[in-house]
């Protein structure tokens, strides 16, 4: 294919990606080192109130935003360097927390608690998702041909459901005296409130994520199981391998490329954890990095948005995902080169 034809075919797509992905990346970098604020002026205002003997007048100094000709508030953009980053990671509080060796103090800084939750969430759900997916795939592979279709249908439901709605549906099972909370209370014979402390909410988020993504791992593993080389399995049987050994030494190595694929996808997606926080209304207890940026972008009481801080936190989020994906990607890269 000639360069020109290729350019025409790929052009629209590249244009969209440059305009809406690459350009915003550059712009948040610029936004994160600048701050846009209204320009204020100080004026002396004399206010008089009618008193008994004539009027009582006071003069005071007031600050008010400058307006331009059409009556809009004038704004001014100034270069502030890394100030917005400092506002997000709060180095003074961080230093004092480290000096005091206080974990609780560290977790009171929103950025660090968001980072902690996002990383724990990503790392902890990974083996759970892979394990559950593999177990379901093995079980479906083992079962009768006739019920495979319906089982796959039911398995796809948690995956296909709108994430916010999925989280909500789990929340409604647990909230107040919801059906599962009532069941737990009856079983453990004690009072339980699932939404009163951070760790139960976190637990529900992990459960939700595994429920939501395990079907994807299952479908991928199930497709992989269909391509297992039967000769290798038979050879293993002749060599006297037990069922467990066959799984461990024949089937799992065969699935290894899929494990790497799923790991990469999972790291990307779990790092973006966000909808769970909306669904479980968890923002007062635990937040994630995406939520932090989202929160800065929302309008505060005065209708302003903390764009600079949002951009700074977005850049930090991006650095995080680069580090997180860099390690496994480098390994894959080396193996490709080595082989």
């Amino acid at each position, binding site marked *: 294919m000639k360069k020109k034809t290729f350019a025409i075919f790929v052009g629209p797509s590249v244009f969209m990606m440059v305009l809406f992905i690459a350009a915003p990346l550059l712009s948040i970098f610029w936004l994160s080192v600048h701050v*846009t604020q209204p320009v204020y002026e100080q004026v002396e205002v004399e206010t008089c109130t009618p008193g008994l003997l004539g009027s009582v007048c006071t003069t005071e100094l007031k600050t008010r935003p400058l307006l331009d000709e059409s009556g809009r508030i004038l704004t001014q953009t100034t270069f502030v360097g890394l100030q917005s980053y400092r506002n997000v990671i709060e180095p003074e509080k961080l230093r004092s927390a480290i000096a005091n060796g206080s974990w609780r103090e560290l977790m009171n800084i929103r950025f660090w608690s968001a980072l902690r939750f996002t990383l724990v969430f990503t790392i902890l759900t990974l083996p759970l998702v892979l394990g559950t997916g593999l177990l379901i795939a093995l079980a479906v592979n083992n079962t009768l041909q006739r019920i495979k279709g319906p089982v796959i249908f039911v398995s796809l439901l948690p995956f296909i459901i709108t994430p916010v709605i999925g989280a909500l549906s789990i929340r409604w099972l647990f909230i107040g005296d919801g059906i599962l909370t009532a069941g737990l209370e009856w079983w453990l014979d004690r009072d339980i409130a699932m939404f009163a402390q951070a760790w139960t909410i976190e637990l529900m988020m992990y459960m939700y994520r595994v429920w939501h993504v395990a079907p994807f791992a299952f479908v991928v593993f199930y497709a992989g199981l269909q391509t297992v080389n039967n000769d290798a399995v038979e050879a293993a049987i002749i060599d006297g391998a037990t069922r467990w050994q066959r799984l461990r030494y024949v089937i799992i190595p065969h699935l290894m490329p899929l494990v790497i694929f799923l790991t990469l996808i999972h790291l990307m997606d779990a790092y973006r954890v966000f*909808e769970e926080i909306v669904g479980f209304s968890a923002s007062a207890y635990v937040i994630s990095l995406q939520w932090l940026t*989202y929160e800065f972008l929302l309008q505060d009481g005065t209708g302003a948005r903390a764009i600079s801080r949002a951009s700074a936190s977005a850049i930090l989020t991006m650095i995080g995902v680069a580090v997180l994906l860099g390690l496994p990607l480098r390994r894959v890269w080396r193996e490709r080169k080595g082989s």
Partner: protein
Amino acid sequence: MSSAALRQPMSLKILSNGFLAFWCIVAAFPIAWIAVMSFKTPIDAFDSNPFRVIFGPHTRTNIGGLSLIDIVLGLALAGMLVRQAIRWLPGKVVEYAPNGRTGISWLVGGGAYALVSLVLLVVVLPAVLGVLNPLLGPLGTSIVGLTTEHYEAVWIDRGFTRNFANSMIVTSGVVLVSLTVGTLAGYGLARADSVIAFWLLVVALVFRALPHSVLVAGYLPYFITSAEWLAPIFGDAAPTLYGKPWAIIAVLVAINQPFTIWMLRSFFQNIPAELDEAARVDGCSHFGAFRRVIVPVMWPGVITTGLFSFLLAYNDFLVTSLLLDAQNMTMVPAIANMFNRETTASDEVQAIAAAVSITAPLFVLVLVFQRQIVSGLTAGAVKG
């Protein structure tokens, strides 16, 4: 090798099938349960006794419910409709397709069938049962409480129809544009063997990893002030991009592009290159070859990719909630707002009804396109 050596002991079979049954319950239960809750009054819906939630005594005494004969006839009719949809409908659709255009025929036939089914279930059946129930004595007295008042409240009083329409505009826009742009790029990438193509794919993969909030942080300030900085180009007609559905469509298409081009590329690679080379030898240009030879055979891949574009747009919360104003709100942020306000128990059940309403189309989607979804999920993985 006999299959005897592969035969499994009974204990393993029981264990494996038991686990499978457990998983199916876990997978379906939350969704099924909110569907049950949405038809009950708040007192029943949030009762701690599961049987009271299912049978809804409070709903039954105060509003009404279903009798045994209602349930039997309802299930029979629904079963018959599904059966006909599987056995009878496909044949008719193909038979009446104009010039073998089965796609359009499916759209019309399926739509008409769905409409007739809906009328039968919602209008005709209740009318018939309204006559039957009083005549049948014990069979006709209601045993399961059921109310549709929350659905009525959500769809009629709260104007959820507008949110639904907004969702449909955004979703269909994203699917159409994303597929048009992505198909061209996917084909180009599949047939090109240059260094640029390779790096384009790598960059797309990096873009795929970006959290969406990062991108939205980049758009938001410019979208709000767009009337100012677009003024030199458009004059007084410069639009404010913030809150406009078509601006959201553009954003979601761009976010979706990396995934779309990877997926379509892998589908196009499965179409043998000899096919379009033969067309080129016969005197077609690249575009002619694409239009005459590739377009007719690309639909399975395009439909699969379209499904995932649909899901992305339909399920999105972050982008739509930040970039759309209240007037153009789509369904997911609307539901989130609904339960985030200080709510009464009745509001809560209305939010549940809205959540079930938004899930129902997805349920049908899996029912119809199960095979395409599975093939789409595995397409990326198997290629590596």
